[in-house]
């Protein structure tokens, strides 16, 4: 078949003629577009509408802050305690059996309603231990791995579909998780470790926070999480006098967070409104009494006999400061007062109390 027999254009196609007026109109439109594009491209950066980016600031990424959900759960009706305390005795060799630790942990949570009240079937639960340092657990600078393992098992047995364990130590995270034995305990308990990397952080907006209203936050482990549990040791702190449940959340901050040491009480109190956990569990079995937060001498670690759980982190820290760290009630860290005030003025405060006065809100049990 020859080319002539196969028309390229449709046989009914009629060429549209252009009038002079139309021609000039199109030329004007093209010139207008070219002028606008030329202006936007070549006009000096400070002229309105200019796209010239001599400083690079225009192309700087703009991070849209996100807000973290409220993970709190109202305690069951009829339960008066906001803080549950369980004491237990050690074995003859001075250690705790894993069964005893499990009993103490269960008993402390039972005082505020029991684990099944707070964890529901299918929940994804994040546990935040204190893994701040590349130290072995005997120094009391990091969370107790045995209790963590017990806690993970307990949460899984309560119906959680997944337990995540995360922290953002400034020292090498893999080394910290390994030496503190938190990684081993997590995997043994059936949890999953989330280590931070450069893509794990997002800008978090915390209304009412003084220092971290918009700040980098270790976000990745929080994806799709339903419940959050803080699990921390009780220890002396060189700057803020005591590091307990509330200070533990400092480990979720990214960026140059060391600058906050200049105003340590404000940053710790900001943490109390940054995250509202389902439960806070504080371990008083290995208490770093002096030289915190890093320690270094096992003799600085008191062999305590208590595990605490609570829905009110302020009351919990106040009780632990006085009864576990054995400090004077009149020397309470300023961050506790600030946390109480910030929570009271927060629009997101809800029904759960955040108060330093723990009188009548602590239920203590003694196990054999």
């Amino acid at each position, binding site marked *: 078949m020859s080319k002539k027999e196969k028309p390229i254009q449709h046989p009914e196609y009629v060429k549209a003629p252009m009038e002079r007026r139309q021609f000039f109109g199109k030329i004007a439109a093209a010139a207008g577009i070219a002028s606008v594009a030329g202006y936007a491209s070549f006009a000096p950066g400070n002229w309105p509408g200019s796209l010239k980016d001599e400083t690079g600031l225009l192309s700087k990424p703009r991070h849209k802050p996100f807000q973290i959900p409220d993970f709190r759960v109202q305690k069951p009706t009829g339960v008066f305690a906001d803080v549950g305390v369980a004491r237990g005795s050690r074995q003859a060799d001075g250690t705790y059996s894993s069964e005893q630790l499990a009993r103490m942990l269960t008993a402390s949570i039972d005082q505020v309603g029991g684990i099944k009240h707070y964890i529901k079937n299918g929940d994804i639960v994040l546990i935040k231990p204190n893994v701040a340092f590349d130290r072995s657990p005997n120094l009391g600078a990091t969370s107790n791995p045995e209790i963590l393992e017990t806690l993970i098992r307990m949460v899984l047995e309560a119906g959680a579909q997944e337990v995540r364990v995360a922290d953002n130590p400034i020292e090498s995270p893999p*080394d910290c998780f390994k030496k503190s034995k938190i990684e081993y305990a997590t995997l043994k308990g059936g949890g999953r470790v989330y280590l931070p990397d450069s893509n794990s952080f997002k800008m978090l907006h915390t209304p009412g926070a003084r220092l971290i209203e918009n700040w980098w936050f270790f976000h990745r482990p929080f*994806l799709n999480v339903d419940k959050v549990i803080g699990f921390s040791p009780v220890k002396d702190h060189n700057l803020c006098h005591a590091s307990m449940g509330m200070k533990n959340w400092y480990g979720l901050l990214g960026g140059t967070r060391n600058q906050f*040491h200049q105003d340590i009480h404000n940053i710790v109190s900001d943490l109390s409104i940054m995250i509202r956990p389902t439960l806070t569990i504080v371990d008083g079995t290995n208490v770093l009494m002096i030289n915190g937060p890093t320690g270094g001498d096992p003799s600085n670690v008191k062999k305590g006999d208590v595990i605490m759980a609570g829905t009110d982190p302020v009351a919990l820290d106040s009780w632990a400061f006085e009864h576990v760290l054995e400090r004077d009630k009149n020397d309470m860290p300023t961050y506790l007062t600030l946390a109480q005030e910030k929570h009271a003025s927060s629009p997101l405060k809800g029904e759960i109390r955040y108060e330093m006065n723990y009188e009548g809100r602590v239920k203590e049990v003694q196990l054999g």
Partner: protein
Amino acid sequence: MAPSPKKKKKEKVFNDRDRKIFRKRISKGEAVFGVCFVAFTVLMGVWFALQRDNYDPGERDVSDRVLEAQSVEDKLYRTPLLRWTDPSVAHAGGVAAPDFGVFPAAAFAPGWAPSAPPQTFDDKTLYEKIDGQEVQYKAYGFKSLSFLAIAITGGSEEINIELYDMGEFQNALGIFSVQRGADRNVEANGDVFSYMTDAGGIGMVDKYYFKLTGNDSSEAILAQSRHFIQNFPANIQKSGGAPYAFSLLVGKLGYAFQDVEYVKEDAFSYSFCNDFWFARSKTVEEMRVFIHQQDGPENATALFQKIVDEQLNEFSEVSRDGNSIVLKHEFLNTFFGLAQSGAFLYGVEGAPDDATLAGAMKPVKEMLDAEAAPAAGTKPAAEAKPEA
């Protein structure tokens, strides 16, 4: 010859219909497929947009168990790899010597080797290692931290070694005093002042403050810690040695090392009182002797007056004799004595009565008066013979 329409249709690859542009109607199936295809594409685009950077690779990881179950045994022959050796490291018998960084190899017993490369931190990066406690070290003139983790071959024991260069002897002593329990006995071993813990040792030598922290309370860890304390000081770079005030308190007045404390800033809670040496009394609880050296007698006189002026807010004057004054606390009823001898200020705080105060100040006065006060303010560390 032109092909028949039937043959022309057969030449079509996908269907035998006319091009859509020529068709007057489109089949229902094609229309439904088109709508579905567009909807699918739009939905996929929406999903991509919603995902943004929420993607969590970990959630889609194939689990280790599945990988392990589906793995096959690798029987490929591999050429044995030779251990890489750093050409800059001295070789012994073809094997690179372990890199102990600033630490002398003699400080490590056989069988111990670094488990990670040595690290160094300065005042800008110290928080990376001891976040939250760096302020305490910086208050005592911190210069650098050398960190080394060592592990025993074939065992689980590990020791973290932190060596803080505090710049001067008194800074090292200051941080050592602050972090040491008040009742902790310190052993003197040559220039090294240290004590053993259940899992290592803590001490100082010259301008260095060190902490050895084991991961357990094992004999191997304690043995290596003792080895380090005995052998480490041989090769270190030393500073000017112990200041005269320390030598006087420990060497001549006989105070035990653990009773001596150096306060770099804010002695007596006064911002103008810096570089004070204190020694706890062995006999009277809460009583401390203190010594301070100024640049010259004039400055010492000015500081003397400033302290007295401030103290008189809480104390009442009991007696004054030339360059010496005794004050009594208005509520606690304790006595505070302050005196000047040349460029030195010395005194006693917390004395229960006037006579005890005088008894504690007398030997200090005699020493300072008898000796010509050194202009430089320091004497060799060898003069310090502490009472262990």
